[in-house]
């Protein structure tokens, strides 16, 4: 084993350890803000694993999109709504936690068996390395065109939905619960959808 292989081996071990620890932290920690920060750690260590697999574009895109955009938005949302209140103790949490643990353990066992038993067809073609961006681009515009376009339509729908939600008018003074559960009420003025009503 030469120097480069040794470095790769050690960093793979470190990355896997970081990923497992941070992922467990995301699930198990009580403080939701810690979970959100640790999620960034999970994404970064997965990006490191992609790097070790010679997929540098995927690794960089992972950091840019998942850490730089998704995780920042999650943190943003948590910090805008989080009023630092401890969650109320709910009856029967232990049963729920046990059930969740059993289900998650089952899924893990199932996936693990699948990974071990599947005869993976490992390609003998050397990794494309520097040409990977061009290859990904060619695939996007040939045999993966449909998923690519569908994803863009999905993003457009999400964008339109976000704008519709953001344009809601919140009017505190007309807020009157009328016997309904206050927690389920949104204090907003009813608003016609765009292009409906008014002949």
């Amino acid at each position: 084993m030469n120097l480069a292989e040794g470095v790769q081996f050690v960093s793979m071990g470190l990355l896997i350890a970081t990923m497992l620890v941070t992922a467990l932290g995301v699930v198990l920690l009580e403080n939701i803000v810690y979970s959100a920060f640790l999620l960034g750690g999970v994404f970064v260590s997965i990006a490191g694993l992609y790097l070790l697999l010679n997929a540098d574009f995927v690794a960089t895109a992972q950091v840019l999109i998942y850490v730089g955009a998704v995780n920042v938005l999650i943190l943003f949302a948590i910090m805008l709504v989080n009023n630092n209140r401890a969650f109320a103790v709910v009856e029967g949490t232990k049963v729920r936690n046990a059930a969740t643990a059993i289900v998650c353990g089952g899924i893990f066992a199932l996936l693990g068996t699948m990974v071990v038993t599947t005869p993976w067809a490992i390609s003998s073609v050397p990794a494309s390395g520097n040409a990977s961006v061009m290859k990904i681009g060619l695939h996007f515009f040939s045999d993966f065109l449909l998923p690519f376009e569908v994803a863009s339509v999905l993003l457009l729908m999400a964008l339109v939905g976000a704008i519709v939600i953001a344009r809601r008018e919140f009017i505190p003074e007309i807020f009157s619960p009328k016997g309904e559960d206050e927690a389920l009420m949104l204090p907003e003025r009813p608003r016609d959808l765009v292009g409906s009503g008014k002949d």
Partner: protein
Amino acid sequence: MTSGIDLQGTFIQSLENFGIPAGAAKAVWMPLPMVIMLVASTVGVLVSVWLERKISAAAQQRIGPEYAGPAGVLQPLADGLKLVFKEDVVPAKSDPLLFTLGPVMAIIPVFLSYMLIPFGQNLVITDVNMGIFLWIALSSVVPIGLLMSGYSSNNKYSLLGGLRAAAQSLAYEIPLALAVMAIVLMSNSMSTIDIVNQQTGYGILGWNVIRQPVGFVIFWIAALAECERTPFDLPEAEEELVAGYLTEYAGMKFALFYLGSYVNLVLSALLVTVLYLGGWESPVSVDWLAGLAGVALDTPWLQVVLAALGITMVLFKCFVMVFTAILIRWTVPRVRIDQLLNFGWKFLLPVALVNLLVTAGLKLALPFAFGG
């Protein structure tokens, strides 16, 4: 171009001659450029802090620092020493772990990005294939550190500052990336070396700033916004938020943020140099002059001169950009948060998209000039 002086090869060869195995010799070499780059970036910060103080003084008809060293050049060093000896206060009801991690998270990606900056054909730490894209990804990690410090300070001004920083950097990252994408389209590569090489050969006429004037302006505005400098320093707007996410910080943790902001400024100026101002290329192509004089390009003395000239050129262009940034800071008033976000999303983003489209069209129509 790779022939001539090869410092790395010579160094490793001489170590191997002492009987050190090849792998170990390489491992001894590897930290050297990194340490040089770290020291260089810190010295760059000292220089730009001094420039900031002197230029702001000139803008306000003062003299500025004068007693620490000739013309006050040692003033930033004195500032740094003062911060080292200050008490490192951690507020009582803060979250000590996140409070300490915040500045670290904010500064590491910035220093890491320095590995992409080429000072010459082979004067770069690593010629990463993802180059400029990696820088965009790294700079998108910084707001996590700012959110972390804003949240953990347990102070409403800090939290507001952190949220503003995240919103601002999310908004301006997209025009920044689109402006960079137009450059990548023209040079067919994301590597910083290839981007500079594509601009060489014609002197000042070949620089991207001539082919991408709109992209240049978009990039510089967005980069200033990413650095959180006035007119875009809303996250730390003194009149509204005390000091934003910096409010509760003192001593070395504050120094890290301070250092990080100036390192980021110098880094942005260096990237403008690489992307738009031809990197190490001088306004009159030296290769062409050497051809006129009849000197072969791999002559040792010419290579030394070229390397020195390249570093000088990169630093000169970089500090011209730093100078404009400082001048903008001391002459332009701060924008409001709604103006900032409207400007980013409703003006810069569409303009950057159109710029990208036009570049793609020009690349198809005029492939000789736009790297087809």
